[in-house]
């Protein structure tokens, strides 16, 4: 069973950037990638996805172009820019620093073992 965790604000941006590190992708593909990679913990609402994509595009961290999907559908593909790459590494390290600090405070992982 998957536990749905509320996504902290601003983390969607870094997740999108990280997803695009692996290559160009369209909006649908990005949402699915995040869902799969997080093992269904993070389900991206499309209502949040597209505003996030606009934001990132406005800031110049990603670039968009029309292209053809695997099913020969016309789709808008996003790619990471140089600035975006820099931003990604910055934010990733910030995130890890944060996560470690919080982890240290909260102590070792006390979650109940999953019922298999």
């Amino acid at each position, binding site marked *: 069973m998957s536990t749905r965790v509320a996504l902290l604000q601003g983390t969607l941006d870094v997740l999108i950037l990280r997803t695009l590190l692996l290559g160009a992708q369209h909006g649908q593909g990005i949402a*699915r990638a995040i869902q799969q990679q997080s093992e269904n913990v993070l389900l991206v609402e499309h*209502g949040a996805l597209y*505003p996030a994509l*606009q934001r990132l595009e406005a800031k110049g961290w990603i670039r968009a172009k029309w292209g053809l*999907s695997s099913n020969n559908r*016309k*789709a808008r593909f996003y790619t990471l820019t140089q600035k975006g790459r820099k931003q990604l590494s910055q934010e990733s390290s910030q995130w890890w620093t944060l996560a470690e600090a919080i982890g240290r405070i909260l102590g070792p992982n006390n979650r109940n073992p999953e019922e298999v």
Partner: protein
Amino acid sequence: MFGKRRLDDFSEELRSHLAIEADRLREEGLDENEARRQARINLGNLMLQEEQFYESSRWAWLEQLRQDVRYSLRQILQAPAFAITAVLTLALGIGAPTAIFSLIHVVLLKSLPVPRPSELYMIGEAKHTGVYSGIETEWDIFSYDLYKYLRDHTSGFESLAAFQADPRRVGVRRIGDPRAAQSFGAEYVSGNYFQTFQVPAFAGRTIGEEDDRAGAPLVAMISYRAWQEHYALDPSVVGASFGLNGTAVTIIGVAPPGFFGDAVRANPPDFWLPLASEPDVNHARWVQNAQLHWLYVMGRVKSGSAIRSIEGQMQVELRQWLTQGPGVSGLLDVSLIPRQTLHLRPGGSGMGLARATYSDGLKLLLAISGFVLMIVCANMANLMLVRGIARRRQTSISLALGAARGRILRQALTESVMLGLIGGIAGIGIAFSGTRALVSSVFVGNSLPVDTTPDLTVLAFAIGVSIVTGLMFGVGPAWSATRADPIDALRGAGRSTQHSSFAQRGLVVTQAALSLVLLTAAGQLILSLRNEANQKFGFVSEGRIAVRIDPNLAGYKVDQLDALYRRIQDTLRRLPGVLNVSYALFSPMSGSNWTTDVSFEGRPPGLDGENTTSWARVGPAYFDTIGTAIVRGRPVLESDIDSTRHVAVVNEAFAQRFFPGEDPIGKHFGARPKFEKSLEIVGIAANAKYREPDQPTFPMFFLPRPQVTHYDNPGTMAFESRSLYVNDIVLHVAGANLSMEEPIRRAFAGIDPNLPIFWIQSLETAKTKQLSQQSLIARLTSLFGLTALLLASIGLYGVTTYAVAQRSKEIGIRVVLGADRNSVVGMVLRNAYVLVATGLGFGIPLAIVMGRLIRSRLFGVDWYNPTILGGAAAVLGICALLATIVPARRAASLEPLDTLRGD
């Protein structure tokens, strides 16, 4: 716009996303329709996302504005009757203040057409003018010597220029031109005048310092206007020799077009001459008399200068000059010197001579046109309210479908602002044509110094007023439109029996009140004008003509004057139709005036300015010719010559002011202390108005032309000598005045062809000119008052019609139930008249206040005037009656079945 393009882009992206999702679901096993449906569900509210995207875009508000504008235009065009009424009403309401503002802008606000006018500073406020001798306390007019002193000792000015305060006319004739001399305005200026204003010559060169030296060749500059209108832009004018008052000068250059000098005045100068040439052309040698103050001083300060410190420095210099220099009037009381001061003022808008005369009148007109604008707004608000109510159904449906109230409010406001702008543009058209007419009426009979086409400032004003007007009359109705309850849409709006809203009623009341105020003011002003025009002027203007000459400028010597004036009198008397001829230094209503202080025998001399009177020299039979009665004693006679006893005739005001309760005949006075015995009073003339028609008659005395008193004071003596050259020949003719002009000119040509005539004018015309400003204001106020009345009537008509329409069902029901049709109609009308009465109730105290505010313009009319107030109220009542007749009749002829059936 980018927003639009990206929205399409985004929509396409969403659709592609949908398609891809559907594909995926199909791959997972769902069939076509199910896949698509599921994809849709997964994606959520597409439209909402599109909207969110759209609204996050920065240009959304602009897009919405465009939509609102297009919608408004469509709405407006769909109701042509309403649109035309609205636009016409607005055009009038906006055009009027714009025209007035245009005038104010031209007369009061505009900068001189010179570079960097903000660097220009003038001394004083031009309260003194002409030629002045004496102490000023607050100095604004200077002698040549004093100007030079200030110029040479003040370091803060880049250049300090001086120019004649009161340019006079000169006779001009191009050497070799066969035509007779014509009179033009001419101004004497310092050598650095054009340099100070940084005005280059259009052709030739400007007057420079080298021309402003004693002994330099005589030169002059001509204005572009004169060059164009009188010499057809002939290039040979530059370098040509012209005779100015008979003296040959070389024209060295043409001033640029649009340059009219240093002040906004009617009849700007057409010729500029260096100060040093004044003795040769003006023959008065003012530049050589340190005690004659006839120059204004203006300069361009060095950038970064501290004005106050320059001012302080100049104040010290002034006092030094008064102490050490030739002094003032010789016998200056030294204790007064520390009180002498001057102040620097920004000079960028010129000397502002027209300002003092016209500013009060213009402000009043602006206030009145503001009233009209308010009435127009009230009318428009009414119209908009009615429209809003009619469209209530539509608005309710929009609200029910989810439109934001704010958006509807915005749309309504956009519509009213659009109307305002359209009306404003039409109003600009009105203002454009109206301004020209207005300016000609204000500067009556004279040439306009400035361009009257509306420039950017005026256009900005008009547009600003349009937008504000649109907002003002749109806010109320828009607000009430958005308060529409959506449930009304379902119920079917229009079935309500509510009376016209409070706002509508309030508007009619406001209009009625404002109309009353304007009508009352108009009545008072018109009556004042009539009183002023019909008052006893103390002289007769019918059949009287004045001819202005200047023998001084034509080079006559003092001893030639006796013969000249006798010849003039004899020759003119022999013309057919001429009953009598005489002359005076200046005639009544001519715009001229000479004043002096007087001292009386047996009394201590008054302070400077305490005993000031007007005075003039007159010829024999003057009082007869001008139609002024001699109350006691005798007039000036032919036998009064220099060698006989020096006499004076005083007017009643003089007698009352200086000899109350006594008989002035036989008493003595003079123009200076120690000369109190020089003039003996031999007659009292009836009061005659020589100056402003709305001021009480000034004390005045009249001297025989040849009798000269030799004063010890050079300043006074200069005036005394100059006054021997009396300027105005006055004729009493029988029959029509104007046909005399040709014979008079020929007669003068016969006496001396080199003596130019400056103007020939009947005293009737002179009077009209003096009354012109008052007349204009009265006429405009009446125009506005009638417009206000018309608008208020239309408003009342609209409200009543609407009320009848609203209550048509109610009326139908009542009639069917047996009520008397007339009493039903009376009920509707009663409401209307209650509104008018309330309007009157508010308007009456407002009108009284208005009367008090304009009391300075009233002449012989009480500011609190129940008669006029009552009359205005009656007129309003009658118009209300007329306005409600048609709706009343319509109400009376309603078929009850029709009203009950209709929805």
